């Protein structure tokens, strides 16, 4: 078992455990933390795959901005432990098995079809950030511009939502 494989399994285990604890934790802030753990683990996996830039962005944006926002909101609303209600019958009885079935099916599908994916030709090319930026500004320039627009809209929406209506 080579070192990368070892690291992979380590990080994978961390990620899965984090995901599980996201589910099992009663308190949202713990869930948030476990999610952060998952994200950091994923960042590690990206590094392992040589996608350094994406890894960094994953941590900076996901870990450093989005999840901070979550934690912030949790703290702001001072959310307590979530109460265990079961008004939705279908969710109570069918929900869990269905979701598990989904997991199993996805995994199975990946096992069957994922093997067909050819392995990396020259992975070190993935390390190159400038290539990504070139791609971003040449092939994907319109989506890129669109995302800027999306963000603008999101900002406005957030402002409108968050401001207390003046009375």
């Amino acid at each position, binding site marked *: 078992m080579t070192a990368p494989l070892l690291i992979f399994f380590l990080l994978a285990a961390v990620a899965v455990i984090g995901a599980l604890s996201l589910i099992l934790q009663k308190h949202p802030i713990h869930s948030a933390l476990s999610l952060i753990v998952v994200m950091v683990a994923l960042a590690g996996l990206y590094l392992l795959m040589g996608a350094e830039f994406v890894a960094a962005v994953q941590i900076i944006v996901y870990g450093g901005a989005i999840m901070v926002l979550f934690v912030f909101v949790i703290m702001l609303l001072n959310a307590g432990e979530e109460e265990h209600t079961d008004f*939705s019958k*279908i*969710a109570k009885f069918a*929900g869990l098995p*269905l*979701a598990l079935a*989904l997991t199993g*099916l996805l995994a199975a*599908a990946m096992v069957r*079809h994922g093997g067909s994916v050819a392995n990396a030709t020259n992975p070190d090319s993935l390390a190159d950030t400038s290539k990504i930026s070139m791609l971003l500004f040449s092939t994907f320039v319109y989506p890129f511009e669109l995302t800027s627009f999306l963000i603008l809209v999101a900002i406005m929406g957030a402002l409108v939502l968050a401001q207390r209506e003046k009375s």
Partner: protein
Amino acid sequence: MPTQPILEYLWIIPLLPLLGAAINGLFGAKWSNTIVNTVALSSTGLSFLCALEAAREFVTDYYPQHHDAFHKAFFDWIVAGNFRAGFDLQMDQLTVVMVLVVTGVGFLIHIYSTGYMAHEGGYYRFFSYLNLFMFFMLILVLAANYVVLFVGWEGVGLASYLLIGFYFLRKSASDAGKKAFIVNRIGDFGFMLGMFLLFRTFHTLDFHDLFNQIAAQNWKPEHMWEFGTMTVAGLLLFMGACGKSAQLPLYVWLPDAMEGPTPVSALIHAATMVTAGVYVVARSHIFFERSETALVVVGTIGCATAFFAATIGLVQTDIKRVLAYSTVSQLGYMFLACGVGAFSAGIFHLMTHAFFKALLFLAAGSVIHAMGGEQDMRHMGGLSKKIKYTFATMFIATLAIAGIPPLAAFFSKDSILLQAFQREGGWHPLYFVGLLTALLTAFYMFRLIFLTFWGQPRYDEHHVHVHESPWNMLGPLVVLAVLSVIGGWVAAPALWGGKDYFSEFLAPVFGSGEAAAAVDEAAAHNLEWKLAIVAVITAVLGIAVAYWFYVRQPKKPEDLAKSMQPVYKTLLNKYYVDELYAAAIVGPLVWLSENVLWKVVDVEAIDGTVNGIAHGATGIGDTVRHAQSGNTRSYAVWVVIGALAIILILFWPALHALVAPAQAAVTR
């Protein structure tokens, strides 16, 4: 700087009136009459000058070099598959004549209108419409393919609709407008069918290519394609022409169109628009030359219309209606000319007619103006002293239309009748009917003159005080009078063995068309003299009769009317044609649409289906809505189920095979 500046930028000619229309239409409401005048007049005047210059360039520079029509594609308008309709304009001798007539007469009538409409409401609106009409008319005559021509064709229809209904507060006016529009639609239907047929056969609607293609099929009189494409196409186009030019059976709208202001009647319903039909037939002469049938139809209908309208004209009492029917009848003459293959003669008559008929209408307008809006000739009389200039000009015009030499119409009518007579193969009836019509024309025109200007005033003098029109109305009258005197002289030399300069000028367009009529010179020459004399005699006869009836024994007409009651009534009611149409066409249509289309198709079928769908949707909704519990977690489960389904379909081979075709269809 191109050598032919205006010719290179031909679009400037129609553009100017459009600009005028736009400016007046958009801002005119706020402006004083003076500014509106300036805009309208300058736009039309400028385009008249441009037209002159363009004509000069074409005749002196371009044609001598190229010996072909000037043709320029300005931009692609419609390009679909192998169909291309470009915004192409062209200029040839025919166009020169038309453009000059349109812009010239149009300009004069604009001037006249500034006086006539001075006290009307919606002044700017009127001039905006008028300029718009000029624009479309110029497009029509300058067009280099049937599509652009059709644009102008419909455009002038629109403008005429707007102007007939100018006094839209009067129900009769708006009705007349609608009538004109609808009747024209019938004609346009034929016109469009004609275009489709042509495109289907020749894969182009461009005059140049189209005519060259046809000319290429070396055509000889003996194998004229009877009932062939030529015939059908020609007749379909002629159907459109009937609509525009108020020929039987579609003439009914023109008399009602007199509801519009008099300048409009002069410009649109006498001088220019109604002649568009003649122009189209002349433009498409190549089909008619290749189809005896089409020619016969055109000739017969023209002839019939001429006579028919003339007879109605005999008894009308409304001064403008008389002129309207005379217009119809004159148009009939032009079609008669086309029918006998004398296209240049037809165009010639078109030109002269434009002069004297415009003059007649304008003078009539001036009379009405003087009478303070009175249009019924029975309440006029003895005006000759009071409004000298109007009288003089109108008298000239009447002489002209009656065909008294050496006035314009004499030459044009003469050449028409001549060629009708010369054409071999049983065309003489047309000649004789034409002659008879000339007689009638002379009669009813002079009836009009006598009723209006001679005798004792039949109106209450204290109430109406007659006054001469201002100079900006009289000016155009004078100019037109001069034109209708000398307008015909270009063809005059023909009488003295010279040659008919007009037809010579148009020869490049109509080419061999007249060749058929070419018989040996000497015989033709003295025949021409004979016919001319005959025509003059008939005209004089008509005048004499009118004089006898309406000046010597003013009682006689009433007696005559009483003695021949049925005939008189029929004529007075225009042969009951309107009633006939109402009964035969309108009524059934109304019944059909009410009882079948509305009560059955619309209510039962369409509404039924729609409501049924709606009810079905409601029913389904009522049952399904319970799934919407408002509980997000249930929704989450539904989402998961959906995802499951998708994965199953994608990755379960059996299922995938099942949806694969659909997928392929989607991706394709």
